[in-house]
């Protein structure tokens, strides 16, 4: 393993260990979240209230010595509340731009589906292109830019489901789920005195984070594996019960995530295991199911799992 990759892997594990001080029993989730961060994708955490979505996001943000902002999405939130606003200054008779929370390295969009679709869409450009246009002026965001959004399940009251274009901008979506009983006891013990989040210290610098992102791109992917990922994405387009299949952006995200995971696992190349691990979190949330199929109990996750089973994996 080359020096750069070894270094990056070290950074990876350091951050993971740091986050797991807070997030007990969530090793797989931390892996995915960090893989998304390293590969430059954004994360959507969907789960019931109280499962630690915000805590996880905060823990990651605090582990990296980066600028962290948080927006609590509410129904009356406006796009300018996120992007920023130009304010007229009486004194020098000019407009001055007040940057919004989007100008940060790590943005936590809490309960993103409580805001109106208009506000949700304000993040489209930022997430897709790493820039925002305010008052017709293009402003670059600083590297790295990483959005962690949390949302309550769509069926909850007072929520606006994210539009599919916005969904497609998230590289991965996954749930944390409830931890095992023993872990939950440990959580209670840990929080008896103070929240462990308070004790979290940054363990990686911004420069190290950038090296990590650079190293991920060095991970090699064979043609056969690329073909496998494309086949997976293509299969969703013809799968039964699916109205809208996965976009090429999905297969691209899948490749990047597989690269990041491979780095995490200490490999210089991506393998089919990493692809299979990430296929559901990367692809499932992008599928739009037919109402008929939804009522018959078919879920996007189930569709992707079935495709994984059916598509011959390169071995």
């Amino acid at each position, binding site marked *: 393993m080359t020096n750069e990759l070894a270094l990056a892997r070290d950074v990876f594990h350091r951050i993971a260990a740091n986050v797991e001080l807070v997030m007990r029993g969530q090793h797989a989730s931390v892996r995915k979240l960090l893989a998304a961060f390293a590969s430059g994708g954004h994360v959507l955490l969907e789960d019931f209230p109280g499962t630690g979505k915000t805590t996880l996001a905060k823990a990651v943000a605090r582990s990296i010595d980066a600028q962290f902002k948080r927006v609590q999405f509410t129904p009356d939130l406006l796009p300018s509340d996120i992007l920023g606003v130009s304010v007229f200054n009486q004194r020098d008779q000019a407009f001055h731009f007040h940057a919004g929370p989007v100008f940060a390295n790590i943005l936590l969009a809490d309960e993103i589906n409580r805001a109106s679709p208009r506000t949700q869409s304000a993040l489209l450009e930022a997430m897709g292109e790493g820039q925002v246009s305010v008052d017709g002026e293009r402003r670059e965001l600083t590297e790295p830019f990483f959005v962690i959004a949390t949302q309550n399940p769509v069926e909850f009251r007072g929520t606006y489901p994210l539009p599919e274009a916005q969904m497609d901008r998230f590289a991965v979506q996954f749930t944390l789920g409830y931890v095992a009983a023993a872990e939950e006891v440990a959580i209670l013990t840990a929080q008896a005195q103070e929240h462990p989040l308070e004790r979290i210290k940054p363990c990686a610098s911004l420069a190290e984070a950038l090296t990590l992102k650079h190293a991920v791109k060095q991970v090699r992917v064979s043609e056969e594996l690329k073909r496998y990922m494309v086949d997976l994405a293509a299969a969703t387009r013809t799968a039964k019960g699916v109205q809208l299949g996965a976009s090429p952006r999905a297969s691209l995200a899948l490749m990047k995530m597989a690269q990041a995971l491979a780095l995490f696992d200490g490999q210089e190349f991506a393998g089919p*295991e990493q692809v299979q691990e990430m296929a559901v979190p990367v692809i499932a949330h992008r599928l739009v199911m037919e109402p008929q199929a939804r009522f018959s109990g078919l879920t996007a996750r189930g569709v992707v799992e079935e495709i994984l*089973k059916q598509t*011959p994996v390169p071995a």
Partner: protein
Amino acid sequence: MNAPPLLVGLAVLFWGWQADLLAFAAPLAALLEGARLVKARWDFSDADYGRIWTLCVVLFAGVAVYAFTSNDGAGAVGSFFNTNNPAVRNNAMTQGTRAVLVFIRWLPFVFVPMIVAQAYGRRERIDLAVFSGLVRRLRRLRPSAERSPGVNVAMPFFSICLTGAAAANSRGPGFFIGLSVLLCWALWPRRSKRYPVPVWLGLAAVVIAMGFFAARGMLQLHRVVEMLQAEWMAGMFNARGREGSESVTSIGKHGRLNLSGRVVMRVDPGPGVHEPPLLRTSSFDVFRSPVWSANRRTFAEVLGGTEVTTWTLLPGKAPGNELTVHVSLAKSSDALSLPPGTGELRNLPVAEVRTNRFGSVIVVETPGFVSYVARYGPGATLDGPTNESDLVVPPAERMAIGGIAEELNLASFTPAEKLKAVAQFFARHFSYTQNLETDRSAPAGETPLATFLMRQRAGHCEYFATATVLLLRQAGVPARYATGYSVDEKDRGRGKGYVVRERHGHAWCLAYVGDRWVDFDTTPGIWRAGEYQRGSSWEPVRDWLSRMWFEFSRWRTQQSGIRPYLIGMVAVSAAIIIIRLVQKRQWRRAGTTAETPGRATMRLGEDSEFFEIERRLGTLGHVRDPGETHIAWLARLESAELDTRGLCELHALHSRYRFDPAGLDTAERAQLRSRAAAWLSTQSATSKSGTSETTARA
């Protein structure tokens, strides 16, 4: 479903073997299976596949025309709708079926371009829109609708080959055996690997045995149904024998005789023949009103002449006259209509010619349409010598016949004078009609013939012929009743020769005078004119169609078959399509192009020894699912308490060899090889004890 190796090639060979087309099938099979060895692939677009499909359709049409013309299938289908005669209908149906069978036999040939294009094309599957205009239209209407992945034409082609082989109907045991082997081979790769091979083979054997006995049962059922059908047909239609064992006359029926104007044959008299004679089909000696039948009607086979198409009926006779007859004969066997004293038949390509003592000539296995030359002349005829039945007058008719014979004082004349007297008698006192009224003055019990002779004195040829025969017999002249055709309508469409219609069917008398049989026709000559006037209003149209078919058939037989022309036509259209195909395309070497290379080329490390391990574990029942990665599989094995020590490290090497584009260096490659070999050897050493352990646990 992809075809397993050699399957399509074997199916093609099988078809060639069964259908006797091995010379064509063997190179094709080599071509198809050769695609596995040749790396070069042709880059076809959808439009190209469309053109190839068009080519297939052209071939389809060509083969269809070939099949139907070579067996007279179209003529058969035409006559099926053109006739009410059940025998002709039945025959037409068999011919049509035969044409369809020939067509199916050639069917694999039709789809050869498509299968070759797939074998040598880059695509594994061909878009459905190539085959179906409906799919193309749907695509246009709903562009967003999901597309099917297309079809692999190998398996459909495989089934077409089997169907073609079945249609060849070679009736040997080879077909069933070959079919079973091919189907087993087709299913072999799809078998469940969870069961041992002997179980699968045993099940296959059971299925094949069931198929064998079911086929036998079907055959027996077929026979039973066939017999039932024959009985049913016989009972339903009371079909008249085609070979002229008897002739049911209309004697005794009243009302108008309705005869069709359908053209039966065309006759071209040879040089020197000004007035063609009556053409006799058969003759009869026993009258049982209203049926004339032939007594002791045995046939003798005539051996072929100098050529296969020349048949000498009367050896030693040198006939001076010639007559060419163009006629469509029934395939299996049919009776010829011949001029009196025919000694030789030429240009008659049939398998067998039979004659009997009544002058009937039966031909067997005809090619359908024939133009034969009958050489005839006065003198000897085919008719056998006279016997007592040629002098019998049925008791029911004796009173009337005897009365007339006495009135004419026939007994005192010489045979020639008797004929003259009878002819004069009919010419003076009788008239011709096809429209017989019921004669109410006739006393009960009087036979129709007696009514004709004593009271009505008008009737059609059957009355005249029957009465003449019986009168001559009464006078001591042996006589027979003859049926056939009168040739007297000029063929105005062709401008030469004569046309013979169904309604020109005629009956007359054969009299034995001066040691030979002569035609003796007493029907007033007016009947010819009367017949001619009675054509229906649309007869010209039908004549024209009939003539077209005649010309086509004759052209075909003269040209020794239409096939070269059709094959030429098909070849030209095929050449045009192929030229259009080749113009823009060039052979491309797979792998040398920058475009998406074939799947086969981008698989790295295919020769990894880890696959050997996987195969070994697979034979022990630890089969990896197609969607399962090696790591997940190994984890599963471990949880199944299988010893996978060392496999994980080995897999790490394998994984790098397979998925790292940088690959392994030679030392690592050697390591992978040696460690895999070591694992395999230890595994096989412990397998004996291990297997028993596993089974014990299971």
